[in-house]
């Protein structure tokens, strides 16, 4: 299958890559662009480890084709920090021990950011449903929810 | 003389005794003498074995001293998750 040239914007930078038409965006990001912070946990859109935002919308990159990113804007976990300053969600995840193994963390951070962008002051229930597309097997979610609450609080102060 | 109790399938290696008497001061001596007396024990040593001395479980430290009046239990080596 011939490859297609894709021009896209990733974490604010213009990026080009060529990929086969049937390749997932997840594979393009990991294998062609080198963004291995985007994780594959299932390849079927059930675990959320590959979460990114595409034009601001939260998606599983394993359910999007690499060629579909043409002309669009992508944010991955690698683009969350502002220069040398961690995003408040990143800070609070570390501070609240919201990660154990850390494999699901990139996806949770992206999903949590999408949630807070939409709803800066979510209730616990809104956080729990907002993150229900992401599987974590280590933490039991307790410290993740608390970290998102703490980050939301800090972000509202600004 | 130590009274050594055996659990599970280990008993079949010592002629189905639940308890045997062995003269040993360390785990190494204990296991060596057991195999001398019951050659079928060597298979279990290869598969891995654990020794409980007064309730504390040892899996590898064969140099461990065994007090005279200790309660000694032999059990298969157990994996964890």
């Amino acid at each position: 299958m011939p490859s297609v040239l894709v021009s896209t914007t990733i974490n604010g930078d213009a990026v080009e890559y060529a990929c086969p038409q049937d390749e997932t965006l997840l594979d393009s990001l990991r294998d062609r662009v080198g963004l291995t912070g985007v994780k594959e946990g299932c390849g079927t859109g059930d675990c959320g480890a590959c979460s990114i935002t595409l034009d601001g919308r939260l998606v599983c990159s394993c359910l999007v084709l690499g060629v579909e990113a043409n002309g669009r804007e992508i944010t991955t976990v690698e683009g969350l920090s502002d220069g040398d300053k961690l995003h408040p969600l990143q800070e609070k995840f570390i501070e609240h021990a919201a990660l154990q193994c850390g494999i699901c963390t990139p996806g949770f951070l992206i999903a949590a950011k999408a949630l807070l962008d939409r709803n800066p002051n979510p209730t616990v229930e809104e956080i729990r449903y907002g993150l229900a597309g992401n599987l974590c097997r280590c933490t039991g979610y307790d410290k993740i929810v608390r970290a998102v609450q703490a980050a939301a609080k800090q972000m509202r102060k600004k | 003389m130590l009274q050594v109790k055996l659990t599970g399938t280990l008993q079949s290696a010592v002629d189905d005794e639940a308890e045997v008497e062995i003269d040993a001061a360390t785990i190494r001596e204990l296991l060596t003498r057991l195999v001398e007396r019951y050659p079928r024990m060597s298979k279990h040593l290869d598969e891995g074995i654990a020794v409980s001395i007064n309730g504390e479980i040892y899996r590898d430290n064969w140099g461990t001293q065994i007090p005279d009046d200790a309660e000694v239990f032999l059990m298969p080596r157990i994996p964890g998750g």
Partner: protein
Amino acid sequence: MPQDTSYTHQKFNVIGTRPKRPDGIDKVTGRAKFGADTSAPGQLVGLILRSPHAHATIRKIDTSKAERLKGVKAVLTSADLPDLTDGDRAMLDILENCMARGRALYDGHAVAAVAAIDAQTAKKALKLIKVDYKVLPHVTDVDEAIKPGAPIIQDWVFTAGVEPKPKRPSNISQRTEFGHGDVEAGFAEADVIVERSYKTEQTHQGYIEPHACLASVRPDGSGELWVTTQGHFTFRNICSSLLGMDVAKLKVTASEIGGGFGGKTHVWMEPVALALSRKANRPVKLVMSRDEVFRATGPTCSTSVDVKIGAKKDGTITAATAELRYQNGAFPNIWGMLGAMTSFACYDLKNVKSIGYDILCNRPKVAAYRAPSAPMAAFGVESTMDLVAAEIGMDPVDFRIKNAAKEGTLASYGPTYGPIGIGPTLEAVKNHPHMRARLGKNQGRGMACGFWFNFGGQTCTDLNIGIDGTVTLTVGTVDVGGSRASLSLIAAEELGIPYDQVITNIADTASLGFNDMTEGSRGTFSSGMAAIFAARNAIEVLRKRAAQMWEIPVEAVVWEKGEAKAMGKKHGNLPQLSLKEIAAKAPNTGGPIAGHSEVVADNAGVSFASHICDVEVDPETGATKVIRYTVIQDAGKAIHPDYVEGQFQGGAVQGIGWALNEEYIYGEDGRLQNAGFLDYRMPVCSDIPFIDTQILEIPNPNHPYGVRGVGETSIVPPLAAIGNAVSNAVGVRLSHVPMSPPRILKALVEASGS
């Protein structure tokens, strides 16, 4: 005494604080490299072809078309993996599980593998491999597997532990028995006897990171393996042995590990990746899909358990028995034995007997899953405990307290206990506000206890002091959930310096001595112990160097609060020397300052937990929601309480998933029907409440800081705690896990007689 393990009773400076983990930034920025996150120049993509049949003879494998496909660099079958195991059946089982040898034993069993220049080519090549199967009758249910006429899975397996020695092969690989006293006499004394049977379905550890490795073998017989594993040293030994490589010539590096819970203590496809690389003379990256993880790695057992408990009206248990049938998958192991050992470990019983059966089925080889075998036994025993308490009209917590094991109790699995925590966790349950909270309509509360052994094991650690006084602690246990932070805390405590001054690294197999796997809740326990000993050895060196700098005898130097202090009338006025000051002079006082330690960290200290759970059951649908959950567990000493709580919470939620939803579903054809996260449903954030924790600290007398393992026990009580809560909510006893909506609904309908 550097290697003295005794509890020091010391007052701690940094132990028990909650600093940030050193690998946190890499893990929140995507920089941390897990199994699938690395690559090598010229690397190939490896893929494995798997059997679609539960049980079949492999007559022939034709790989010629695949070999001819452009871009294919190696095709592999068992013919490329000669048996070098020299009669070691356990090793041959590992090899056969990695690649079928003339027979497929379960749906998903590997039969061939390819390495090609890219994923597309590798996929095409798999389709070109022709396997000629002769399908055989199969069995996937543990009770069916022991019925007369069931297909025999391993013709070399004769039931061990029974007399006379069987003459025919059997799917029961062994029978094991534990206990003491006279159970018949005990039951004769009982006022009440309850006897019940239980079933639990097979579940998977469900780590989010699939197995992944990058193998590179050179034509001179040396090689490297980058892999997600709980034990890179063990992987090195097993892989080199199976492939006929020298141990020292295979360097294994543990990647960051995206969860393991026991599932990454076994090799599943790493020897295949190495063999592909050797055949192609190129690096090969092999990453499992989720479907492969479910079908072809090691879930835990499905079980069938009978429990009988007799008690007097005053609540004294007079006798208890359990018969436990554990499904091991296609290869024999000791999981039923473990179930038999753990079943009654929480209680002080005069007459007790538990019999474990290990049973083969056409399912994947079972692996450890967090306190392996204990949750299923606890489900049966703790459910029956509640039934007995109800029969004699006693509060279930009081009933357990009355019978709880304590120091001096003869454990049901043999030894006599030292100081243990089951009693204190039960007292904590009794006094917990959770027990007094009001319940609403359709809600119920349950509690249950759990036990796990915990292990230590072989451990090797280096501690090196830099020229600026910062400290590198190098360990060989992987960081599954914050252990770098805990181990830095321990080294800092022992040296008397701040946490920030210590950095903990995980060494590859070429850089450190052998370490057992990170299993059995041993990571922080044993590497922590080795770190203490390494620090004590470094302090000896630091004292010598300070003595040199002062030109006084070393006997006059003591180490206090991170500084060398000169003692006695003659030297007492010398200003103290900090670790930094001594480190700065190291080049001229004898060179690098380091402490090493090699230790077998035995005596990890048994662990107990009690959990409380509230559920709400929808009587229309049978759907159950956990609305409140409390974990109370003895940690010995919590080094970094955040990560201890994390272990408690994570284990509890895995248990909740097991109790309510998760199960392997096999079709009549012997194929796994739900090999994906959509149909194998693990708990998500919106399913779960906050998990409250209470850490008890009953010091382990055999660790300088009193540490016990904490990782596993938290998964033991949930099945039973939820079972008891559901039963209290709906008034019907549930005896089959998972208690999914259809099963609860069925039980409700049957109970109402409609």
